[in-house]
């Protein structure tokens, strides 16, 4: 394992991806772009999980594939979330004829 890419590289990559995603969520106004940014954040967590599975501690009694299984389930959840999100965005788009999250502001207070 000495020749491998070190764990920290993966963690830096994941942290960077996560930060880009968070930045996108906060800055972008288009609902679809926000959805993409959320996906980036989820994928950063997936990278983290797989990297930790490969390099991290492995206590006694732990199954051999915990991190990978977690990652697979997260990917599934991400897909489900996109389906729900696109549905809701379409619903709002039909009412407002706009996909900007700023425009949806009938409620306040």
């Amino acid at each position: 394992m000495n020749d491998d890419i070190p764990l920290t590289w993966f963690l830096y990559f994941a942290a960077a991806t996560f930060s880009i995603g968070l930045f996108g969520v906060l800055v972008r106004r288009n609902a679809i772009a926000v959805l993409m940014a959320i996906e980036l954040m989820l994928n950063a967590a997936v990278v983290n999980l797989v990297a930790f599975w490969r390099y991290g501690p492995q206590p006694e009694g732990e199954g051999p594939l915990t991190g990978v299984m977690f990652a697979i389930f997260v990917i599934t959840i991400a897909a489900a979330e996109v389906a729900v999100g696109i549905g809701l965005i379409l619903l709002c788009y039909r009412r407002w004829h706009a996909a900007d999250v700023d425009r949806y502001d009938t409620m306040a207070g």
Partner: protein
Amino acid sequence: MPANFINLNDFYAIAPEILFTIWGLLVLTIDFSLLSHKSSEERGRILGWLSLTGTLITLLYMLGPTFKVALSFYGIETSAAEIPSQLDPYLFHGAIAGDALTRCMNIVIALLLAMVIVISMSWSFTEHWGEYFALLFWAGVGMMLLIASDELLTLFLTLEMMTLCLYLCTAFEKGRRRSAEGGLKYFVYGSVSSALFLFGLSLVYGQTGTTRLDAIESALLPTSGRVIGLQGNVSAATAVLLILVGFGFKVAAVPFHQWAPDAYEGAPSAVTAWIASGSKIASFIAMMKVLIHGLGPWARQPDSLLSPGWIGLVAVIAAATMTYGNFAALAQRSLKRMLAYSSIAHAGYILVGVLAAAVAVKGTSGKPLWNPQAAGAVLYYLVIYGVSTVGAFAVVAWLSRDKDREDIDDLNGLGFRSPGLAVCIVVLMLSLIGVPPLAGFFGKLYMFMEALNAGEHGRLALLWLVALALLNSVVSAFYYVRVLKAMFLRQPDKEPIGPAPSGVAWPIVLSTLTVVVFGVFPAPLLEAMGQAAIPMLSSSETVATIHPPSPILGVASSGGRIGKGVQAGVNSEGKPVLIKEQVLTAPAPQPR
């Protein structure tokens, strides 16, 4: 059978979840096949009754063992011996737990779902009834499994299952623009928070190499067995912060509350009731499991409560949440929005209880000393809060059936036209304020007393929190009383709301009854919740060796003394503080 194979008997333990899932599919299929030619109202009525039947069947199935135990308690022998065998805290290789906590809470969730379904039937807000009821069921499955989950992957999966269904339910009211808007806002905030939460979980997995909560605890606990806090551990601090953000969003705690008023206002009132009660109960229990059970070693430094650790963070969040929620609720004209802010405030009170549970659980002198009564008080409060919230949102459903907006002024003069229901609403509001002798008062009392009697180091900090919570309760009286003022002191409008449909009346009456009965006799519920709290706080093996089995739920308990103390105190009428002292003087269970 090989050792690593799933034990098929485990499926019996999640029978309520399986029933709910199948019933959701059944409702959906019947809507598409048999009822496709019927009108929208008719389909809503038929499917509503079908869903209610399914929920009640599940409820009866779950209550069956309780009836048996209750009968044997009064000397009538049934085959009660088979019950403990159904309680296995280690199902599916430790992914979910089938303990007293899940059993009690599944009953609560099914009861709340039944009330939500009844409220949904009171007016016609959508055409897609099959999908609507199926999503309600599946959100309920998510909540039940979230309460049961004992492992981070299951926890995240079920959390998402619950919230994804609720996002969709929120956007179901077709005629109103704000429904779609509330759904999208809920979705954006919710999915960002769950992405943050997941990143936090991945960091926890990286530090411990495991996803099971008890293994996480033992991996984090240093060999001295003392709590260590977060001093100098940046990765752990990030993980805790992200996990707190995730749970903060789900329970609508300040500063992660922005979605709540809009989603609550936009959603159909029945769905609002479901979000405010069921999802909040489930999220709070999952939060306590993860923080107290899994991340307990990161709570604080051994000798001070507000040292680096999640206890300090939760204390700050609790203070901000209850203060903001109450003061923002003062400014609301809409009943629905007012209740949304008040539910934020209640989340703040519950967080104080969570702190008390966390402090009471971990003794600082090496080995942990369990005090399940503090966590039991939180569960008691959650149950009472959930039931009374559903009742309060039933009132909102009544308004949204007849009016475009749910203003408090629309309740004007209700006390003269529907006196019975108005009195019920008064009782509900008084219980939400926390007026004795209603259950809301006892919930707050037990929680705050546990907070005051918790750890020896943090008493001053918790004293401040409790003082702030009491002050906030006084503030909350102002906006709840506005409802009463509208009902009894003002003249009816020109266009008053019509008589209540039975779908509104029944939940109001039922939750009022619950609040009154458990206010006058809090002991049985409190005792059951104290027992249910035990598996939430420690790994199952520890509990099994500490506590002798109790006859009530067929589970491990701390012996009958605490519960009997409560009973004796309550029967001696009207001195709750004395009762509490009796409870607290009951000896804590010995550590292993």
